[in-house]
């Protein structure tokens, strides 16, 4: 079929933000090694080496002055001119993306652009670099170098295509890649799957994707999910929080790598700030970094399989499980992890309506 204009836009943005996270797609955090990238909680996460970026220290970035920033961009037979006349035009956007993270009050994230260079090798060179990357799709990626369980360097290859196609909210993909450089893997949440059908103006409960999702919206602001992830990796002094933990089963056995969302109930009773995690191989999960208050939980299979390849390889429950919403609020206190009742996902989902592929 010819998709509706809305669907066409939606599919396009899905493809446009097909990011390559290095070194491997984990969940929530990158683990200590490439082979052990499934880090569900912050204590298993790979931190930055204190010798490179210790607490209260500032990480330096170098912006490439390579001429590719100004290259035209080919997309489906059309040629688009680069919005940049030089690398200097890129600099304000990089600074804005860095500030999105460094403005998080509960996190100790200090980083800046220290300079620009014409020649930056595409290799590990102890320089955290942001380079232009022109492909046949507007795709960007972050290469995170981990050794001995610590992050030593991060390089971002960024497509000017994001700036061509996504207009005024164009820093979104840069914010995403910088999140990988912090040590964050792809988020489990995808609220705009709902808003693909029912956009935020229709009053969706969760109108904005986390920046660490496989990004279907282009709002560069961090969400609660991003803020908690960054704060757990690089906590500011005095960051105190609580959590929720429990188990999920599917068909009587551990539900491997299914998605859970905890949504905080605001003072007015409305669902608000949301955080997501995956279960581990045993179907266990743990939310960290939660502010005190009451929360509702939802569970279901992962969305956007391309964002979580390593979880698929590890046997994630994908097809057949229904989404489940727990209706009894769970109370979270500072310094404690609330035990949630067991969640038993059941078979179903067999009647999924298959949407057609984008033609051409």
């Amino acid at each position, binding site marked *: 079929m010819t998709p*509706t204009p809305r669907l066409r836009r939606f599919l396009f943005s899905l493809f446009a933000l097909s990011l390559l996270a290095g070194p491997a797609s984990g969940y929530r955090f990158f683990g200590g090694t490439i082979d052990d990238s499934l880090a569900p909680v912050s204590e298993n996460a790979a931190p930055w080496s204190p010798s490179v970026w210790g607490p209260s220290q500032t990480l330096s970035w170098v912006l490439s002055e390579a001429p590719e920033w100004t290259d035209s961009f080919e997309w489906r037979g059309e040629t688009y001119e680069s919005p940049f006349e030089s690398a200097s035009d890129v600099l304000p956007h990089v600074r804005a993306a860095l500030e999105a993270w460094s403005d998080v009050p509960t996190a100790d994230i200090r980083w800046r652009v220290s300079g620009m260079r014409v020649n930056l090798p595409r290799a590990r060179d102890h320089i955290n670099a942001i380079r232009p990357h022109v492909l046949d799709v507007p795709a960007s990626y972050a290469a995170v170098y981990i050794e001995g369980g610590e992050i030593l360097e991060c390089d971002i290859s960024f497509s000017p295509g994001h700036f061509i196609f996504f207009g005024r909210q164009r820093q979104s993909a840069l914010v995403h890649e910088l999140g990988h450089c912090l040590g964050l893997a792809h988020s489990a949440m995808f609220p705009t799957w*709902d808003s693909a059908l029912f956009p935020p103006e*229709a009053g969706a409960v969760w109108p904005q994707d986390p920046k660490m999702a496989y990004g279907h919206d282009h709002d560069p602001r961090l969400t609660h999910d991003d803020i908690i992830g960054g704060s757990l990796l690089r906590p500011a002094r005095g960051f105190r929080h609580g959590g929720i933990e429990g188990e999920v089963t599917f068909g009587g056995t551990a539900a491997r790598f299914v998605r859970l969302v905890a949504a905080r109930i605001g003072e007015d*009773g*409305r669902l608000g700030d949301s955080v997501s995690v995956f279960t581990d191989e045993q179907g266990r999960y743990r939310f960290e970094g939660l502010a005190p208050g009451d929360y509702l939980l939802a569970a279901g299979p992962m969305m*956007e*399989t391309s964002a979580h390849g390593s979880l698929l390889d590890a046997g994630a429950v994908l097809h057949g499980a229904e989404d489940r919403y727990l209706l009894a609020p769970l109370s979270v206190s500072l310094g404690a992890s609330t035990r949630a009742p067991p969640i038993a996902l059941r078979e*179903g989902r067999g*009647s999924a309506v298959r949407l057609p592929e984008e033609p051409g």
Partner: protein
Amino acid sequence: MNPSRLGLAAVAAGLAALSGCEGDSAGPAPVVPPPPPPAELSASFQAERADLAEGEGVEIGFEYRVTGLHRPFVLEIRLAGGGELPEDVEVAGTAVPLSPGEDISGEAVLTVVSSPDQNFAEGEEILQFEFVPSETGVVRTDFGPPVEVAVADTPYRPCDGVVLRGTGVEREPRPQEESLHTLGTTLTLDLTGPGRDTTFELRGPYLEFIPGAREPYSVAGFGIRDWRIETDGPAYRHRMGITWPSADYLTALLVPPPEEPPEGEEPAPPPEADARLVFAVVGPSCPADSVLTCDADGCYPTAEIQ
């Protein structure tokens, strides 16, 4: 003689002869009495509104007075606006026969009974009843305002400590794409006692996305608007505005536009996509799965997903 005068005389003679055939041919022509003046009929309901729940009935009294009624007459009550009664509503006492008389007054009762059904998201049903004016001119009427009867939806209790209510399902244009529509209702779930640990399981619709994905995967094909939770001691109340695609919306998403038909043939109509929201209420106080379906007519329990 003037021919025209002669003609008139001949007609007058003919009329006299005709009159003579009907009456006493020996006496004078009779006087036809004038028709009686129309009777005066007034009637009014004793209340402006009555409320009833599904499965209940209500009696609505009304008063009437008629003067100068020379013929039998029936005072009738009907649904205002000329519509038909819903299938789940029965009415009695809609006709009061009035016998001739100079001054007759009385009271009577209109009975409205609502049959229970399992639809818990019909919304409040408002019916208006009015007196039927005379169309013959025999009776001059002076009727009071119609009476409004509100039939409240009956909540559904799938499990011990779980009560479900829904507003009437509404069809709305989709924002920014008003040729397509969504269906929506606001569900209220009251959870008390053994129902507090109840969960909500989405059975459909799910939409399966493939492009760009490593594996096909499906996502919930519904949106939740303005989800609020009220806590009253050990009881919880959830209010969820749930929206799902209407048939035209799903059809537009799923079905390719029809190919150009051969000359002289009509294009095949697109298949109708299923536009139902199906969910289950699952919990320790539920003896079995309680599967519920919402469609354009409302929400109701269903045994199986078709």
